[in-house]
């Protein structure tokens, strides 16, 4: 994304709406400028109708590897391999149809850079590597999986490590035996990354004894749940 110098009147209105913190006013000319290092290619600025002169201009197709910024940062950009936009898969939302998570298999969704901090993919790489060591099975339909050069080791392509994104979701399944180790690895690596991640725990609850059993399981892993959850209510069917 760029700002056309000749159109910008330096009103500064756009500075606060940029999720990448990439827009600043130049001291000499007073015109706004976008730091290409910080810009996430999220397209918030071009969708926004607040620029009095429509000074924002974008490239229609971004060169590799910069193109990954848009895939992970603009929710209305679709990742064509999965037809899923942005940064994740349908994961548990359609589990009543896919049975991707059967009873006794758990999912973890690690939303790196969220909330609102952003992340370089080198931090995502640190997380996928420790999860691989813990035996996690990465979701194939997830955009992060396609960036892996060695899924067994969780290594991302070196070409993308310096790309900055608004957030990127790592999705994986773990067995009950692997769960405590995977959570401990995530807690440990959280102290070595230069960003944040929001963690989600996915479980098929059709055979759950009672709700407290979920909390007991997490407590045994040394972690607690927040008061927010997505619940699939089981109305999906395989045939339309």
């Amino acid at each position, binding site marked *: 994304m760029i700002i056309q110098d000749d159109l910008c009147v330096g009103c500064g209105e756009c500075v606060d709406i940029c999720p990448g913190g990439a827009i600043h006013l130049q001291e000499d000319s007073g015109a706004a400028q976008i730091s290409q290092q910080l810009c996430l290619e999220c397209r918030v600025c071009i969708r926004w109708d607040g620029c009095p002169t429509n000074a924002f201009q974008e490239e229609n197709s971004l060169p590799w590897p910069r193109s990954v910024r848009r895939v992970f940062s603009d929710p209305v950009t679709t990742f064509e391999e999965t037809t899923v*936009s942005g940064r994740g898969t*349908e994961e548990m939302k359609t589990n009543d149809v896919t049975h991707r998570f059967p009873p006794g298999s758990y999912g973890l969704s690690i939303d790196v850079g969220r909330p609102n901090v952003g992340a370089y993919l080198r931090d995502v790489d640190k997380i996928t590597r420790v999860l691989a060591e813990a035996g996690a099975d990465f979701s194939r339909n997830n955009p992060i999986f396609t960036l892996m050069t060695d899924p067994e080791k969780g290594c991302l392509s070196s070409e993308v490590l310096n790309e900055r994104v608004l957030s990127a979701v790592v999705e994986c399944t773990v067995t009950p035996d692997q769960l405590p180790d995977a959570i401990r690895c995530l807690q440990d690596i959280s102290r070595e990354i230069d960003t944040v991640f929001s963690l989600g725990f996915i479980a098929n609850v059709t055979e759950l004894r009672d*709700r407290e059993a979920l909390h007991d399981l997490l407590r045994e892993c040394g972690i607690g749940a927040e008061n927010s959850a997505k*619940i699939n209510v089981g109305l999906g069917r395989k045939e339309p």
Partner: protein
Amino acid sequence: MVCSETSGKGEMQVTHTLHRLKSDLKHARESLWGQTETPPADYIIMTMACQGFNEQDSARRLKKSLALLAEHTPVNISNGEESIHTKATRKELEDNIGDTSYVAAVFDDPGLLIAALKSLAEADLGMSVVVTGNPDQTWPLIERAGLGAHTINLSLGVFGNTDSLPSSEVQALIMMCGHGLITPQLAERIIEHVAAGDMNPEEGAREMASFCTCGIFNTSVAAAILRHGLGGVSR
């Protein structure tokens, strides 16, 4: 790897409704809303078909679910790419639904959530339905609608360099756009405008909601936070 901008039709999207700071309703009621005013709830319903399984004819079924959900007066509703707060009309939302779209609606009242779920169950559209909210509230409400939980995704919180996060009040506002499209600076500016009387809380809430392309931003909760401050909102 290939990416493309959506045309408004034909691509599936996934929102990020999970990690939101939730109002502790009981505490909020005691501390902020007094005896008579009930604090707004924060529940999201999403309906979607599943790629490779049951997406045939799903545009028609999604349009039906949009119509059903709209009847229960959601505070936000979307086709996954545009919402009533990004200036789309109901007709535009409907016209731009494709087989791989999804529909999301935000409710600020438990009774409306139950009624909306009952409508979807009766319509028997065969699509997956997901409810986001505080599970201590939503799980019993789902059961009161005659349904049960199949699969759950529980938020385990935020890890890492949490010093870089804004204040809880600002987080409670901006995390209602799961994609992070509302900046802390914008939220702070709107908080200041409302405090100065330059904008009323509803206008401030709608301005923030205009950045949330997925239409999952809860304008009732945002207006309450802008009006009363953070109060009962707790992690």
